[in-house]
């Protein structure tokens, strides 16, 4: 639905003779859409008079444009939930003027509700139910019939054996509506409501919570517990009930029109049964409520509503809706967030910052791409330069203080956000405030965080810049100068084996030798591993790889492009050298050794090696878990490489699957066409048979390709899980035998990295549950490791 700025209201009548007749109704429809979408936004007149005026306009247009008006209103109910009460008031006014229209609207809404539930659009369904319940407050729907709908929802949760997802969704739908839109004057509503609420009272206890810890941003309960969302909502409803359903935060334009609205006749909802569970229903992921501020954090100005107050819930919901509607246009999004109605009564900047970080840290993944939040926060700082940056600094400080219990995935995102943000503000930060991290072991979360942030900052600038921006005392945390380490650099007293060879190879490359010529030169490199029977010398030769790759990388060290060209030019040689699995592993080792001070270069080169099929994904996984990489195992860049590798594998499978599907479609079309055209000349039939034959062959080939790719993908995950289990078991056993506490910094990091694999790729991994349970995550496994697997399984609804 477009939300065009409509600027030519005055021009509508100008030059009518130039417009063709047929375009007029379309223009009026566009105008109606624009008027409806814009109501409630900043205006010189009051909201009430705008609503009154619009209701009049729409009433007049009903005879000709009823269908269009119905469609637009249904759409705004679904897509603009942050303006819910504005639109329910509008519908109320229309219903008061035209009873039939009101009835048709309600019917259209019910149809829409059924469709959204069928299409698994749960959040939209919730908005629709909310809209309907608010229509009770506008005297459009009779309260008893709405309550009956709620009772239907609750009855779903009373059944035994329903999937957690259906249970949660239904409870959420009912809770949500209990909570927000009861207007204390609707007495009827209230009494039946109290009954419903009591009925649900035992349900939350029935739901299992194993998955919750996997989704929490902080493992500590203080200062703000990370509650499971329904638990929090439940507490908010309880409090609202205790306050006798008095809710003062939501803007309710219909109050001003009460005298008009209560004259209107109400409609009854048709009986509505929520759909039963079906196996292909996709329920929304559970989530945890993110809180980082409370009333003590906003020292001046309006007080922040408590964590179990309804107001808190409503504000967060509305801010999230605004982001959902406008995330693609960051300037609009920032403006809309900052013009939140009722902003004078709340510390809006704190709410905005909390909601944004809540989304950014959401597990398994944020609702929108990470970089959007960075861009949005920058826009907000631009619009409120006197207040928002301070709140943001306060938030950053708070998150730094709580790093010890923050989930590793969230720390990753915080590192990325903070470094990118700083790069937009000349890297200005009071690093001295964080001097406490300097006295800690460098592997501890705080110094580690600072180190990783500085590394990322360097990637966006350059080494000397980082040296300049931090105090002298922070020098241990400054990243290494990203220069290469060429082992054949100088003549030393004990020349390295291969030094002479390296010079030969270097000269050959400089003289534009071809791949064949290089291979011939390399034949003379002795093999330290050589068996006596291996005369050919074609077996895995680590020295050959070292000599060639070190020299090549050295010659191409100037930039990414130079290195990419070099790898492309000598693709043949590299393929030859990495024929075996050992070869593939060794090339990664040599690469790492050469560029160990430049993790960014290492990452992009590993990416290129995979894309040019010099190494495969499993080789990268094995390399990461190899003893040589143990030193860097907890560094951020290593995990970026691993996740990027997994993503490439996944995309590869998707791509071939798509090709297969397209080929199958083409064949089907061909066969349909043949059926239709049968009886045509012999020639045409023969041609189409040939084509068909070709397509069938192609499909067979693609089918094999898909199977092979899927098998490679499964193998990759199995390798990763296996290596994790080995590493973790080793650590646990070692700790047990020496009587040491298992909860070292390394252990926390490692086990959360395992969790991260599950969370970030859960859709794919779910396919392997059987194999995982039988082969890897068996009952014999240490319960600490098994727990991660069990939490993952609990996530599925």
């Amino acid at each position, binding site marked *: 639905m477009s939300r065009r700025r409509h600027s030519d209201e005055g021009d509508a009548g100008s030059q009518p003779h130039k417009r063709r007749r047929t375009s007029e109704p379309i223009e009026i429809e566009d105008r109606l859409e624009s008027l409806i979408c814009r109501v409630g936004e900043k205006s010189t007149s009051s909201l009430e008079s705008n609503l009154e005026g619009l209701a009049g306009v729409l009433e007049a247009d009903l005879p000709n444009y009823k269908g269009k008006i119905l469609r637009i209103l249904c759409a705004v109910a679904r897509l603009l939930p942050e303006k819910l009460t504005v639109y329910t008031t509008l519908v109320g006014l229309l219903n008061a003027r035209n009873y039939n229209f009101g009835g048709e609207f309600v019917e259209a809404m019910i149809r829409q509700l059924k469709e959204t539930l069928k299409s698994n659009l749960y959040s939209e369904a919730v908005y629709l139910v909310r809209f309907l319940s608010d229509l009770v407050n506008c005297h459009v729907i009779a309260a008893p019939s709405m309550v009956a709908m709620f009772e239907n929802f609750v009855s779903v949760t009373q059944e035994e054996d329903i999937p957690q997802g259906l249970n949660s969704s239904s409870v959420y739908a009912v809770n949500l509506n209990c909570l927000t839109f009861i207007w204390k004057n609707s007495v009827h509503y209230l009494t039946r409501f109290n009954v419903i609420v009591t009925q649900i009272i035992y349900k939350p206890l029935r739901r299992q919570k194993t998955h919750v810890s996997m989704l929490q941003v902080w493992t500590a309960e203080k200062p703000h517990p990370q509650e499971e969302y329904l638990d929090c909502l439940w507490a908010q409803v309880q409090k609202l009930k205790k306050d006798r359903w008095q809710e003062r935060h939501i803007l309710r334009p219909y109050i001003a029109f009460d005298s008009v609205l209560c004259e209107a006749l109400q409609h009854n909802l048709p009986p509505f049964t929520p759909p039963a569970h079906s196996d292909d229903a996709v329920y929304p992921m559970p989530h945890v409520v993110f809180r980082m501020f409370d009333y003590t954090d906003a020292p001046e100005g309006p007080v922040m509503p408590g964590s179990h107050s309804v107001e808190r819930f409503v504000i967060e919901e509305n801010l999230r809706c605004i982001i959902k509607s406008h995330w693609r246009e960051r300037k609009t999004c920032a403006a809309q967030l900052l013009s939140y109605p009722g902003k004078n009564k709340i510390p809006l900047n704190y709410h905005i910052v909390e909601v944004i970080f809540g989304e950014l840290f959401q597990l398994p993944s944020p609702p929108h*791409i*990470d970089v*959007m939040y960075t*861009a949005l926060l920058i826009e907000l700082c631009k619009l409120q330069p006197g207040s928002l940056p301070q709140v943001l600094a306060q938030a950053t400080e708070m998150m730094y203080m709580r790093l010890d219990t923050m989930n590793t995935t969230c720390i990753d995102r915080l590192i*990325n956000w903070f470094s*990118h943000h700083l790069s*937009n503000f000349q890297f200005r930060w009071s690093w001295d405030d964080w001097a406490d991290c300097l006295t800690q072991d460098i592997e501890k979360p705080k110094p580690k965080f600072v180190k990783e942030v500085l590394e990322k900052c360097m*990637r966006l600038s350059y080494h000397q810049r980082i040296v300049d921006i931090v105090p002298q005392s922070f020098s241990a945390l400054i990243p290494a100068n990203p220069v290469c380490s060429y082992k054949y650099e100088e003549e030393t007293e004990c020349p390295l084996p291969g030094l002479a060879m390296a010079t030969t190879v270097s000269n050959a490359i400089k003289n534009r030798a071809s791949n064949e010529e290089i291979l011939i030169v390399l034949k003379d490199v002795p093999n330290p591993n050589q068996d006596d029977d291996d005369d050919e010398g074609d077996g895995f030769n680590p020295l050959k790889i070292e000599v060639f790759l070190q020299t090549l990388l050295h010659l191409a060290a100037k930039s*990414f492009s130079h290195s990419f060209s070099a790898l492309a030019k000598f693709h043949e040689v590299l393929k030859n050298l990495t024929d075996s699995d050992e070869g593939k592993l060794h090339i990664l080792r040599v690469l790492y050794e050469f560029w160990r001070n430049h993790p960014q270069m290492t990452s992009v080169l590993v990416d290129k090696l995979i894309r040019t099929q010099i190494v495969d994904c499993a080789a990268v996984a094995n390399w990461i878990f190899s003893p040589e990489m143990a030193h860097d195992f907890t560094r951020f860049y290593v995990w970026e490489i691993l996740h*990027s590798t997994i993503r490439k594998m996944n995309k590869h499978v998707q791509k071939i699957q798509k090709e297969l599907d397209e080929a199958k479609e083409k064949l089907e079309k061909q066969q349909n066409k043949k059926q239709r055209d049968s009886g045509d000349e012999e020639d045409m039939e023969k041609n189409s048979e040939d084509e068909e034959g070709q397509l069938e062959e192609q499909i067979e080939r693609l089918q094999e390709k898909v199977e092979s790719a899927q098998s490679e993908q499964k193998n990759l995950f199995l390798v990763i899980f296996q290596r994790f289990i080995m590493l973790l078991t080793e650590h646990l056993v070692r700790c047990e035998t020496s009587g040491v506490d298992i909860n070292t910094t390394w252990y926390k990091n490692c086990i959360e990295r395992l969790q991260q694999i599950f969370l970030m790729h859960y859709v794919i991994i779910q396919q392997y549950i059987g194999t995982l349970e039988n082969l890897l995550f068996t009952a014999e496994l240490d319960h600490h490791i098994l727990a991660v697997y069990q939490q993952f399984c609990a996530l599925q609804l």
Partner: protein
Amino acid sequence: MDKFITIFFSFSFGNRYEQEKLLKQSCSLYVGNLSFYTTEEQVHELFSKSGDVKRIVIGLDKVKKTACGFCFVEYYTRADAEHAMRFINGTRLDDRIIRTDWDAGFKEGRQFGRGKSGGQVSDKAHNEITMITIIITSIFQEHVFFVTSKKKHN
């Protein structure tokens, strides 16, 4: 003469349609207002935030063959490029606010600046060139239309 005019006419018109079509499908961006010292590494780090980068070509001064303040960034998918246009365009790299625009696709030779002294064409010059092109094209199209219609009446 007729044929020439028709061919030229369809060429200039056709070219614009082609261009627009390419832009709508493009996964490539032109990035302007870089510092002369901005490196490929920095560009890669920033633009990787919206998706996997396929290729970066740093713009060079035609004469000096040094970086001259622009580059091309190509993604594997259109969606990733769109994210860059939404969230990286207008933010800072190396302390300068950079500007991104859709590009029809990198072709060899386009990495060299077309500015007067061999560097990047400035914003103002860019706009002027575009203006002049539009004017000339429309004048020509008008002229062609005039000529062909005149021929019809003769």
